[in-house]
C-alpha cells in the first residue's frame, strides 16, 4: 500500500493502531467488570473505591513523571555552556516541532541512550546519556532528539498512563475475583432466579472469568504492543520533524552495536528510552513482551521510506 511507505501514512497508521489497542483494552476491561459485577453483586461503591485508587495512583505518577524519571536515572541538568551542541540541537528540533524547548538533562552513564518525559509539551524534559553524546555525530544526535521530541509531541506519556490505568484496573478485577470469589464461593446462587440476561449473560461471565485469570499476561502483552507502536510512531514523527530519516537510522545502527546495558534500567521506565535499556534483545525476532521493536525493523522502516510526490493520493 503506497500510503504506508511515506511518513504521513506511517504516522496515521500508527495512531490508528494505538487507538485500536486502547479501545480493545477498554472493552476487555468492561467485559471483566461485567463478569465480576454479575458474580458478586457488590455495590458499585466497592469497585469505585478500588478503581479510584488505581486511577489516582497513575495520575499522580503521570503528573510527576518527569521528576520521577529524572531522579530514578540520576539525571542532572545540562549546563548550556558545557553542552552547547546538545542545547543547540534541542532548540532547533523544538522549532521544527513547534513545541517549547524542553528542559535538557544528562545522565552519567556509558551506555548510549536517551529518553523524554513530561505530561505535556509545556512541562517536558529530554535526557541523554554521556555515552550517547560521545558516539553520535550531530546528524545522529538530531535524529535521536527528534525521536524523543515526538514522544512529547504525541503525548506518549499520557497514552502509556491510560494503558497503565486500564491495565491496573484489569489486574485488580482479576485479583478480586480469584482471591475473594474462590474463597467465598457461592456469591452467585442467591440471585440466579432474579438475574436477567440468561444465556448471553452466562457466556459473558465465562469469557470474563477466563480473561480475568489470563489478564496479567494480556495486560503485559497489550502494554508492550502499545509501547512498540508508539516507538514506531516516534521514529516516523521524528523523521518527519527534521525531514530526514537517515540521522535516526544511523543512530539506531550505532545503538545496535553497543553490547552493554544501562545500570538504572527498570521495566517501569524501559518504554521511555529510545532503545531497550536492558541491552540487546534476547531473541532476534519480535519478542511480544518487548517494549521496543527490534532495531533492524526500525532501521528498515526508516530507510524504506519514500518521499511523497506532490500529487500522490493516500
Amino acid at each position, binding site marked *: 500500500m503506497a500510503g504506508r511507505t511515506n511518513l504521513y501514512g506511517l504516522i496515521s497508521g500508527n495512531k490508528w493502531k494505538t487507538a485500536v489497542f486502547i479501545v480493545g483494552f477498554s472493552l476487555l476491561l468492561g467485559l471483566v467488570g461485567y463478569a465480576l459485577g454479575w458474580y458478586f453483586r457488590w455495590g458499585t461503591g466497592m469497585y469505585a473505591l478500588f478503581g479510584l485508587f488505581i486511577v489516582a495512583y497513575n495520575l499522580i505518577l503521570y503528573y510527576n513523571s518527569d521528576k520521577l524519571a529524572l531522579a530514578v536515572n540520576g539525571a542532572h541538568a545540562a549546563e548550556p555552556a558545557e553542552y552547547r551542541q546538545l542545547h543547540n540541537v534541542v532548540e*532547533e528540533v523544538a*522549532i521544527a516541532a*513547534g513545541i517549547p524547548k524542553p528542559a535538557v538533562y544528562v545522565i552519567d552513564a556509558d551506555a548510549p541512550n536517551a529518553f523524554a518525559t513530561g505530561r505535556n509539551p509545556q512541562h517536558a524534559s529530554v535526557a541523554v546519556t554521556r555515552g550517547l553524546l560521545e558516539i553520535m555525530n550531530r546528524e545522529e544526535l538530531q535524529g535521536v532528539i527528534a525521536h524523543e521530541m515526538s514522544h512529547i509531541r504525541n503525548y506518549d506519556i499520557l497514552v502509556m498512563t491510560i494503558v497503565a490505568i486500564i491495565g491496573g484496573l484489569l489486574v485488580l478485577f482479576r485479583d478480586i475475583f480469584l482471591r475473594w470469589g474462590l474463597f467465598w464461593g457461592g456469591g452467585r446462587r442467591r440471585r440466579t432466579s432474579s438475574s436477567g440476561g440468561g444465556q448471553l449473560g452466562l457466556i459473558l461471565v465465562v469469557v470474563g472469568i477466563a480473561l480475568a485469570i489470563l489478564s496479567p499476561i494480556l495486560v503485559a502483552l497489550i502494554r508492550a504492543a502499545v509501547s512498540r507502536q508508539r516507538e514506531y510512531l516516534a521514529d516516523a514523527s521524528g523523521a518527519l520533524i527534521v525531514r530526514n530519516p537517515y540521522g535516526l537510522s544511523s543512530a539506531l545502527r550505532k545503538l545496535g552495536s553497543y553490547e552493554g546495558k544501562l545500570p538504572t534500567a527498570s521495566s517501569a521506565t524501559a518504554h521511555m528510552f529510545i532503545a531497550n535499556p536492558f541491552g540487546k534483545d534476547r531473541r532476534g525476532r519480535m519478542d511480544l513482551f518487548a517494549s521496543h521493536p527490534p532495531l533492524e525493523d526500525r532501521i528498515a522502516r526508516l530507510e524504506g521510506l519514500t518521499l511523497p510526490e506532490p500529487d500522490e493520493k493516500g
Partner: protein
Amino acid sequence: MILLIVIALLVVLVVIAIGIYNSLVVRRNRVQNGWHQIDVQLKRRIDLIPNLVETVKGYAAHEKEIFERIAEARSLAINAKGPAQAAAANNQLTDTLKTLFAVVENYPNLKANENFLKLQEELSGTENKIAFARQFYNDVVMDYNNATQMFPSNVFAGMFNFKAAEFYTAPETEREAPKVKF
C-alpha cells in the same frame, strides 16, 4: 417537546460554529507567529557575524575581499525595508557566509581554534534553526490553508475574510559552489 429539541440543536450548531471560527483564528495566528520566528533566527545570525569575522581576521587578515562582502551583506540585511528586500539581503548573507567557510578550509590553525569551532557550531546551528523555522512556517501555512479550503470551515473562512497564506519559497536561481580566489 419539539421546541426543546430544536433549541438544543441550535445550541449545538452555535457551539460548533464558534469552534470552527476559533480554530481558524488560532491557525492564522500560528502562521503569523511562524513568520516572525523566522525573523528572530535571521536576526540572531546577523548578531553572530561580527564575532565570527573578528576570529577569522585573527588568522586570515589579508582575505580582505570576503570580509568586505560580509560587511556589505550584513549591512544590507540590517537596513532592508520590506520583506522582499530582507529576503534578498539574507540570501546574499547566506552566500557570503558559505564563501567564508570555504576560505577557512585553507587555514588549518583557524579550523582548530576553539573559539572558531564554537562560532561555527553556533552559526551552523542558527542556519538549521532558520531552515526549521521556515519549514515550520510552511507546515502551519499548509494547516491554515487546508482549513480555509476544506468544508465546512471554508464557509466561515469566506464569511469572515480568512484568506489563504503564502508559502515560503526558496529563491529560484541556481547557486553554484562558491568560488574562492587567492
